[in-house]
């Protein structure tokens, strides 16, 4: 476990934060590159990106904040404590960012779907960010006897507040996530949009990640909240359901059949 990468005078470089920053940077660079390539980079996109970052940060802190609200109230702490010290969740970040983009585009009157430009950028950012999680927060998983199960030193385990699988080999759930995001990035980056409707490649990726993450939660060792499910699983149920409904409606309406264009008019002569 490498919590701190370097100490440069008064500045401490935390592994998790550095990889988060690298992930953000790589994702944004890829996003802007795609926008520039298609000639759609303008000032409104910058505002929309800022809204996405803000929405993502707030969503990451708020979506599972209910897990600690009782403790915060009990301790008499201000509600802002949830924003500064609450649990963080990638699912919340994605949901908050998506909502912020929707609102910002509505506010700015921007009608072009930009989802596909994020479709490769988000998995790249998450894959890099998860490397930071893996290095600084243990593999985080339930006990496992699989050949790739990992063990951690007692010192590293003692420093982590909750680690039910730390007494022996456990699932490296962070590596599973890194593999998923890296695979999604490779697929989208090499093949381009996977669906013909603008924005739906991003939604397809989010749906796939929702299902994947729901499964990973069973081997991740997070605390069960209700109905035998963890907090992220409970949050994922409605979010994934919305995406499933979206794709069912798209398929039912035949939206993935690209309209047949007019044939070119014959200009006379043969070649």
């Amino acid at each position, binding site marked *: 476990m490498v919590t701190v990468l370097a100490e440069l005078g008064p500045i401490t470089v*935390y592994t998790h934060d550095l990889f988060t920053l690298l992930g953000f940077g790589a994702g944004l660079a890829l996003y802007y590159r795609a926008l520039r390539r298609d000639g759609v980079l303008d000032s409104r996109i910058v505002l929309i*990106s800022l809204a996405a970052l803000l929405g993502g940060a707030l969503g990451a802190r708020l979506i599972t904040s209910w897990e600690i609200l009782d*403790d915060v109230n009990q301790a008499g702490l201000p509600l802002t404590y949830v924003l500064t*010290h609450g649990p963080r969740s990638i699912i919340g970040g994605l949901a908050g960012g998506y909502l912020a983009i929707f609102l910002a585009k509505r506010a700015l009157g921007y009608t072009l779907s930009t989802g596909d430009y994020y479709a490769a950028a988000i998995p790249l950012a998450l894959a890099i960010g998860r490397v930071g999680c893996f290095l600084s927060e243990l593999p985080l998983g339930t006990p496992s006897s699989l050949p790739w199960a990992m063990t951690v030193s007692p010192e590293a385990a003692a420093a982590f507040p909750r680690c039910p699988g730390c007494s022996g080999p456990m699932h490296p759930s962070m590596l599973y996530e890194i593999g998923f995001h890296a695979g999604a990035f490779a697929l989208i980056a090499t093949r381009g949009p996977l669906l*013909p409707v603008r924005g739906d490649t991003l939604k397809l990726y989010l749906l796939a990640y929702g299902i994947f993450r729901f499964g990973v939660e069973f081997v991740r060792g997070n*605390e069960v909240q209700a109905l035998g499910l963890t907090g992220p699983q409970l949050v994922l149920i409605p979010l994934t359901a919305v995406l499933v409904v979206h794709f069912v409606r798209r398929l039912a309406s035949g939206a993935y059949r690209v309209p047949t264009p007019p044939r070119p008019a014959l200009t006379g002569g043969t070649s």
Partner: protein
Amino acid sequence: MTDRRPDVDAYLREHGNRYTPDALRAALIDAGHDPAAVDAAMAEWRARQTATTGERSRFRRFNWLFHAVVLAAVVALVAITSRDNIMRGVWPIVAILLAVVLLIGVAVSGLIGGRLLLPRAGLAWALAVPLASALLIGGTCYAITGGFGVGNSPAPNGTATLHLEQPGQIDVSGPAFCRAAEAGSDYSIHADQMSGNASATVGLDAHAGAPDLFISISSGRAGSSQFSVGPRSTATIAAGSGPSQGHVDFDSLEGVGENGEPSAETAAGTFTWTCE
């Protein structure tokens, strides 16, 4: 030079916002259109979707500024989502910084784009929507909780130690949040980053001299255990204790199982705090 194709232009106008450029290009070429003419028509359509050439040129001139704004926002947001000890006590400063950055972004965008890129109504919406949302969410929270605790800094203002004899010998200490009630003699102490031979969180609510105590202990190999005051517990606040200093002796605190039901485990020991 390629021939103008009004039918291709019309097709792109009708479907360009819904389908991806790749899908439209493939459909047009499959229908027998010249690839070069299709690419030219698509480039023209894209140009119409975004700014005019002059505006793009002005945008390029301020490109570095845009990237600086985005970078500043990213750094601020990483600070918000970063490890707790980076943000402790500086949340209001980061929030103000972020607000300033966003306003600069809006202003720069307005200056560069003028009315075409960011119409006055759009600018008003861009400012009004977050403001209205903040008021709506903030007002609701205020109504539900009776206040945000404005003026209470989230920075710890004291230290606390926990000594347990049961279920095992545990000695931990760390920063504490001490808060006195606005009226009466009630107070609360919260310490969530105590460390030593384990890590622990302790929450104490002293109401009319009676303690409501919650303890959560984690040690990597043993897992985590929670304890709270139950019918068989004894917990006594020492005479002279208050929000600035004191200690509680407790015995037979009841263990709390995974589903919130009592467990057979009990805890005994002392909790001590000293605050500003």
